[in-house]
């Protein structure tokens, strides 16, 4: 019984992670602007990876491999949002027509970003 619950839990987690990853991929292909695409890509990098690896961890049980997977999750959660953040800053820096794609609230901040300070 316990074994079955464990299998079910891991299957549900893995499938949820796969669903998030697939929606992320669909978003990357369907969206037309880099900021929107970033949203979709970040989804897969954080929640998708988390769910899939959690599923695998549940199936594996408490071993050294599980700890390594936890480290993978931590590393990805540390690095992937920073990468997204840098991409968005780059977009603000180099795109001269931001207001065509989005609602620019603080124009002075954008100008400061372009100045490069």
């Amino acid at each position, binding site marked *: 019984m316990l074994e079955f619950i464990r299998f079910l839990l891991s299957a549900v987690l893995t499938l949820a992670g796969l669903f998030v990853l697939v929606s992320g991929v669909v978003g990357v292909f369907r969206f037309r602007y880099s900021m929107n695409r970033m949203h979709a890509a970040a989804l897969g990098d954080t929640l998708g990876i988390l769910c899939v690896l959690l599923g695998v961890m549940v199936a594996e049980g408490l071993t050294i491999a599980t700890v390594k997977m936890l480290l993978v999750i931590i590393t990805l959660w540390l690095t992937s949002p920073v990468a997204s953040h840098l991409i968005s800053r*780059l977009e603000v820096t180099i795109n001269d027509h931001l207001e065509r794609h989005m609602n620019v609230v603080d124009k002075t901040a954008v100008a400061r970003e372009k100045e490069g300070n």
Partner: protein
Amino acid sequence: MAKIREDYENSWWPRFLRWLRGGSTRLDDQLQEELVESSEAHLLQSPEEAAQMERQAEERVQQALQDERNMYDHVHDWARLKGARLTRALYSILAVVTCFAIIYVLLRTTSFLPPFGDPDNPVNNEVSQRYIEAGMQETGAVNIVAGMILDYRAFDTLGESNVLFIAACSVLILLRISREKDGSQSAEQLLVEANDRMYEPKNDTILQHITKLLVPIVLLFGMYVIMNGHISPGGGFSGGALMGAALILYLNAFGFQKTERFFTFRVFQTVSLCALSFYAVSKAYSFFTGANHLWSFITPGTPGKLFSAGLIPYLNLAVGLVVCCTMYAFYTLFRKGDM
């Protein structure tokens, strides 16, 4: 530079090319003519006539410019309307054909491969048998791959590290911006440094904090992969790549002022040359003696210990340092032409 260019323009090959193209461009000729004419006309004619002539000349130049623009538009329109469609159709057909051709070739090749795991396969000859059976005893490395590439076939690995070093040298020759003779920065260097990251976000606080957290861990992990190359999977190449990536991340977060404190061109030279020379000398000694080393120092030791397997950990370290330096050098050279 200008002198050389002039010489080139006057040599026979460019002249032949110009003759082939039907002389210089129409616009250039006309402008030349106008210059000559107007200078003479100014001397001979009254101001009104001169003004009129100038106006005519201006009109002619405008006409010529318009002609050229029309021609360009014509070509451009064709490329945009018909040419693009044609290219796209051709491209998709060719892509599909190429794809299927490659699939066919690969599948055909696969069908000739011997079955997987068959003991009679040509791979399973006495060489790999020897490696697997006597590898640990002879080299002292638990990781058979490390024993192979750094002991049995160490000469091959020396060549590989030299390939990396030679690639770094070629990039240096092509991309390095030289300093002034007295060691100060040249004008080109200053320009490149001013333009460096002009279109990039700078001094990102978030990136800097994450880098402070990650770079020591990545460096330590790289070192671990290098030093454990003879015990677990890994080795100089992968560990060196990790360390190089950590250095590049640090550079991206904090800029050249911080990295120049510990990694300059001199450091690159010293580390690469020392590592490669150490590799070459130690392996040459090994080859010269026919693998009969000084048994007291270069000993297989206890397999599984950190300092075992004879020269392998040290050779791994040398390879790792070369790979690390080369990766970092590539990045900096492509970015600003110096380190």
